[in-house]
Each structure stands twice: as structure tokens, then as C-alpha cells.
């Protein structure tokens, strides 16, 4: 069937098998492989993307459910060659090792910072409940999100 939607600001139309999962559509048809599949049960969060501005686990959303929606993936986060503060934060604070959970982690964190500009460590830990990382033990991820939050508050103030 026909699917039309906007991905990272670009409109697309594709013919898809109705049972196609959003994550497989993004990876295999739209060619955006930055979004990863870690469990296919919405437990690990590696596939997190934004659907109409909110974080969703794209492994348990059918692509057809995104009809007419605006999707943002990790590939759409940097603007005009400038990394998003969260991307900078993860880089500066060593918030990643193998990198597999990272795109989902960053997208989940972006959702948090859109709701809470200045989250506490406890709030960050709780907000990341749906995103697993096996490498970092989370501390550097938390530092990365705090660093990005501070940068974004300054940017907004300026």
C-alpha cells in the first residue's frame, strides 16, 4: 500500500507491505540505517525515533501508522553541518562505546529535554528507563545529557 510521510524534513511516498514495521521501513526502504534494531519488543530502545515530535520505539510501530506523520531520526538531528548539543554531549563526555544504543539513547534524551530543560540526575535515570546500554554503565550518558541540557539552556537564553 501507499505510504506518505515526512522524514527529517523531506517528504516521501513509498509502496510498502502493510505489515512493515516502521524501523524496517526507515532502514530498508528509506535507507536510514542509523536507527538500530536491538530487541523487536520495545524493551531496549535502540530503535527510538521521533514521531510528530515524540519519542517512539519504531520496532513496534507499523509504518502505516506513521501515515502523514513527521519522523525525525538520528540522521536528521544535526542541522546545517552543526551537531545537536546532545550529539556533542555524548562525544565530549564519552557517552558511548560500541555506539549501537547511541542513536536511540540520543533520541530519547532529546524527548526528555523537550519536556524538561533542566532534569536532575534521578529524572534522567528514570527517563532512560526504556533505553538499555550494555557498555557505559550509564554514568557518562547522564553526564552527556546534563552537559547538553546546560548548553541548550544557554543557547536559548542567548
Amino acid at each position, binding site marked *: 500500500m501507499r505510504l506518505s510521510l515526512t522524514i527529517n524534513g523531506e517528504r516521501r511516498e513509498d509502496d510498502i507491505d502493510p505489515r512493515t514495521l516502521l524501523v524496517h521501513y526507515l532502514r530498508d526502504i528509506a535507507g536510514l540505517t*542509523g536507527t538500530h534494531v536491538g530487541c*523487536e519488543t520495545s524493551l531496549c530502545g535502540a530503535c527510538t525515533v521521533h514521531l510528530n515530535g515524540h519519542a517512539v520505539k519504531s520496532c513496534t510501530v507499523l509504518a502505516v501508522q506513521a501515515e502523514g506523520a513527521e519522523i525525525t531520526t538520528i540522521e536528521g538531528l544535526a542541522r546545517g553541518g552543526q551537531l545537536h548539543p546532545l550529539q556533542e554531549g555524548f*562525544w565530549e563526555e564519552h557517552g558511548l562505546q*560500541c555506539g*549501537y544504543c547511541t542513536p536511540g539513547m540520543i533520541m530519547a534524551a532529546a524527548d526528555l529535554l523537550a519536556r524538561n530543560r533542566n532534569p536532575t540526575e534521578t529524572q534522567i535515570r528514570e527517563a*532512560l528507563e526504556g533505553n538499555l546500554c550494555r557498555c*557505559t554503565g*550509564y554514568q*557518562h550518558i547522564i553526564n552527556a545529557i546534563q552537559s547538553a541540557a546546560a548548553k541548550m539552556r544557554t543557547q536559548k537564553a542567548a
Partner: protein
Amino acid sequence: MAVIPKFVGERIKRREDPRLITGTGMYVDDVRLPGMLSAVVLRSPHAHAKINSIDLSKARALKGVVCVLSGDDLRDKVGPVPCVAPADHVPYHPVLAQGKVRFVGEGVAVAVASSPYIAQDALDLIDVDYDPLDAVVDPEKALEPGAPVLHEEFGNNSVTFASVPNPAVDEAMRKADKIIKARLVNQRLAPIPMEPRGAVARWDGGYKQLTVWSSTQIPHLLRSQLAEMLKVGENRIRVIAPEVGGGFGCKLNVYAEEALVAHLSMTLGKPVKWIERRRENFAGTTHGRDQITYLEVAALKDGTVTAVKAHFVCDMGAYLQLLTPAIPGFSGLMMTGCYKIPALSFDQQMVFTNKMSTDAYRGAGRPEACYIAERVMDMVAAEFGLDPADVRRKNFIPKEAFPAPTAGGLVYDSGDYELSLNKALEIVGYQKVRAEQEAARKQGRYIGIGIASYVEICGIGPSALLPPKLKGGGWESATIRMEPDCKVTVLTGVSPHGQGQETTFAQIVADELGIDIDDVNVVHGDTAVVQYGIGTFGSRGTTVGGPALMMSVGKLQEKMKKIASTMMEVPPDQLIFTNRTVALASDPSKSIPLQQVVDAAYGYKQPIPGVEPGLDATSFYEPQNCTFPFGTHVAVVEVDPETGVVKFLRYVAVDDCGRILSPLLVEGQVHGGIAQGIAQALYEEVVYDESGQLLTATLMDYAVPKAHMLPRYELSATVTPSPVNVLGVKGVGEAGTIGSTPCVVSAVMDALKPFGIRHIDMPLKPEKVWRAIRDAQQKG
């Protein structure tokens, strides 16, 4: 010209990260090739069953399906899954089951189709007629007469029995003030890298070239094994480890699916991809630990431990994967930990059960050893009413004793165990926390302080320590190439998958050659590009791969000095590399640009006597000994007696990994290690029911810790360089995992002391802790 700074020892950002934070890294599932087909594996729902027949006809008839095969179709076509470690009984391990299945998740058939969705549909159409057999999942029961036998040809379920006797142990037992006995369990764990396994194969018939992309830690060793399984020359196989999303030991292996996709691609003439799903990952990727240890400890009243004797029962699972029976050996050898325990004896009974194979998992044998050693120290302290820190001090190998031969027959390279203990206790404020604990107990609050001093074995090591059948030894390789434009390419035989050697090795090279870190490109994980290497495991990346790189750097420097020496007319031994020049050590203002030296080597318009054109060097470094990182972790926890929930109040880790090249990356390694060790202590356990069904087959049932389940870690370090290698490094990949498990168990047991509870087997889940408290209260 700007001065180029030094990079080693600086907290610099990783060079791997820009692609990973923008979603442009390429993992195996991101490999896309024209005409690529998808393979999906049908897996056994039974732990133990006879296969009467398999009907593939309906699956084969489905539109879009290219091929469906069962184990019988592959007889004599694909060799068995290899085990290179010695064992008395090594069973035939077919890539797909033949005649019988022996664990839930064993591959039974494979469907290949134009898309994974259609291949999955095809699996639903395969009809397998099974006769279920009795299964055995408890390794101790598997040894009893009458137990179901997995491999009939062996007559029983024994894999192998290994014994390291020592008459001095019996002597020490006779003279002991007390013999403490215990049964300790290191439960079965699942490694769970966030990226499951996966492989893509492409056979180019015209060129007779097989390319296999695999999410592996050991591309070259995999190539050697695939060559044997497929009967294809190693010079015709290229293995690429692309971006690998974590390994933790479970990708230090050779799996059926890697050979399967290769065989399928060779027979179908098209690229074939197989990507593991998480449920398959739980059932069909190697597990770790699963050891039971019966301990006898000879101790004196003053806390001195004079002998340790242990009997291990080690669960190998249904088949032997690459190193399965080799892992428990480290648990025996390292069981005396940081302590000068003079007498050690142990034996190990390894057993087949109807479960997935165990093999390396972060720490691989040493977490088990450290858990044993540290429980021993706590039990001795509890027995004689001594402070657990004092018991450790009493038994530590003193710093003057290094290099220190151990009762296990190893020689620890260097160490200062008391220094790390004292530092950790100082950071946590030991006396103050003890006082707070005392005060809290009076208010009915249960705070516990846990201590674990660990030593582990890394950088393995001299090749003689590795199994004789392993192609490749304990060495590592590196090539360094100064390109004509003065940029440097490094080809390393290690295969990092998150550890960050693209950064660490670039730091080393930049400093040694006086160039910028941006001038260095570190390449790994492609057997067509990189000389034979061993791979990344056992904290060996920098410990063994680093010295190999230093050897090549040295050779390159020597050559460039020779060239520069003729150009500058000064002796080569007076030259140094600094700020993109070759300069006189005594007066760096007297220099020539590095580019001129490089031009001379490549242009070669004026031949230099005794110097070949070109600028590259390759080295293979064989370590003379292993390295032995160490440290002390201290945890402060509070246990809620009403719920059994354990809450962290503090977590302090003082680690000594020798010289620190990249502090930020070292911290990252320690953090991740601690998280996995805490997970063993408190949360994780692979559970099979009595019939061999895997109950923990999703991330809902298997408790990989989330951010809110872990504490903030307070790290510090001592630095005791290793004399084993030129860099002075010891390795840090597994240290955190090794120290943290016993530390947390120690803390929980300390909290439960007022209840008279001395031991609970891991994981210390709230329910278990709550039951132990309730039982103790009812008894009391």
C-alpha cells in the same frame, strides 16, 4: 607553526564517535548488497528430542522463498562448529541439528528468501516431527547414574575432569584452627551486547572470493575456522568485522550461522544475510559463568588463610563452542586472588546439560575466581570476628614480593594491593561509614559495607597459554605505514568493538612521531587489509596490540632516522621526532621537515645505502608474561528489610591498570565493567526450567540493568606500571566486572549481619533477600 601537543595521558574525545553519534557507522545489518537474500533459522522448541522427520515442502513452495535446508541437507557439505580447547569428549556439533536436538534454540532448518519477512513466513510452514526426550539442566544431576545422556557415544555427560592436586593442602588443613566449608554458585549469565549477532556472505564465483561480514571480535581466527568448515583456502576468504555493537566475549567465537550464510551464498550465487533476533540471542549465543564451587578453606585465628581446596562443577551446555572447556581453568588458577595463600588444590568436573553452551563472558573465569577469593576473606573475617579489611591486609601479597609466583603457578607482574585498599577505604571514609552503620542499626536500618580487592589476568599472553588447536597464539600484530603525504595508516590485528583503540593507538603514534592525532588513521577488522591478528578479548587490545604497535613504530623511526641522518649529516641516535620534523635532540631548532624524509623514502631519487624505498613496518609481538591488573572496590548499600530491595549509597572503585594512556576511555571501561558485575550480583540470571525451557528469553525476563538500577561510581586509580610490556599497561576491559560482583555481595551480606545471615547465592534479588530475612527472623 603551531606546536603539536602530546596526546597520551590526555582526556581526549574519541575518534570513533562522529560516525556513531550521527548514525553513519556501518554495522553488519547495515550491509546492503545487490540481490541480497535473507536467511532465517528455525530453532528447536525442545531441550532434548529425537527428530523423526522434517517436511520442508510447503516452505519451499512459498512465493519468494529461494531455498530451505535442514541438517541432513548439509551433511558432508559444511564441517562442524569448532571447539579448539582440549576436552576428553568433544561432540560432533553440526551447523544444523542432525537426528537430535540438544537445547532449546538449536538450529534445525534454514529458510532463504527475498526478504526476512518471507523467510520468517517460510519457517511457519516447516513441519518437524519430534520425539521429546527427558532433559537434564542441573549439572550435578547430569552426573548422576541414570541421567539422560546428551551424546550417547560418550556413555555419560562428563566433558572432562581436570585435577590440580597438592599434598601441601592436606597438611595445611590438619594444622588449621578452622576449616571453613562453603558451596558457592556463579550463576549462568547472558552477555547481551546491544547488537545481536549477524553475518552477511558474498561469494564472487569468478574471482573465487568469499567475503563474510560478521559481528565478531576475532575476524582472522574466524577466517581460519571458516576455511576449515567450508574447505576454502584462507587466501580466498575475506572476513570483515564492521562496526560491532558490543561483544563481551560472546563474539569471541565461531558460530553455525557464519558458516551457514557462507555456504548458502556459495551454493546460491547471491549474497545472503542472517541477523539474529533478540530471542535467538538469548537462546543461541554463548552464555557465561555457570560454575558451582565446593570450597574448603584452612584458616588460622589471626585471619591467615593457609590453604584453599576446591571442587568445581562447570556447566558447559549441550555442545562445546570455540573455547568452552578452557574458561573454568582461569577460575582455578586465579582463586587465591591477591593473597599469599601458600597451598591450593582444585579439580574441575565439566558437564554436558541441555542448555546453550557457556564460553567467555566479560572476565571469563576470573570473576568466578575473584568471587571465591573475596567470599573466603569475608567468611574468615566473620568466623573469627575480624574486620574484613584487616583480614585482606593480613593475607595480601606484599608489594616487595613482585614479581610474585602464586600457588596457581602464575607469576604476578607487579602490584601494591594494600595501597589500593587503603585508598579506597580513605575515599569512602571507612571508619566514619562503620560508625554510621552502627548508628543506623540502632534505628532499624540495615547498611552494609562491602570490600573486594581483586587481581586478574590480562594480556594473554604467552602463546603457550592458549589451546594448541587454536590457529594463532597469544601474540598480536601491527603495521604502521607512513604514506607519501606524511599521513600515517595503522593496521592493527586487534578488533575493537567499543574499546576505542582507533583513539588510543592514534594517541601513541602521534606522540612517537611528533605528528598530529588527525594525521593518524587506525584500521582494523578486515582480513584483506590487515595482516593476521588475534583479536580483541581478555583485555588484550592495548596490552598486547599496543606493544606490537610500538615495535612497528620503532622500526619505522629507525628507518626514518637513517634517512634523516644522511640528509642532516648527524648520527641517527641523536635524532628525535617532534612537531612534524626530525630534529637534533640536543637542539631541536636544527631540524628538517618530516615530509622531506618521507619524500626521500618514496621518491628515492638518491638511493640511501642500506635503506630500502618505502616507509612501512610490520611486527608480531609475543608477550613474555600476562599482566595482572588489580584494585579495590568498596560499596555501601542499604537493604530494606520489608522488601529485600538493595539500594546503593556509595560505590568507590580504585583500579590499577598500570600506565593510563587515555583516562576518559579507562573510566568508561571501568564504569561498564562495574555495571555488568553489579548485574551479576543483584539482577541477572539465565533460567531454564526442569524440562530445559528457557524462561529468560526476552529483555523483560532477563534483567539487564537500566540507568536507575545502578549507582554513580566514584573512581580513583593507583598506577603500578607493568614490567611486561614497553607501554607499562595492564588492561582494563574486564577489571570492573571482576571487582564489583564480590564487592556488592559483600556489602549486602554485611548489611544482613544482624540477622545472622552469612550467605545468599546470587543474584541477590529482592525476593531472595526478603525470604532470607524472613527465614532468619522466624528461626530467631
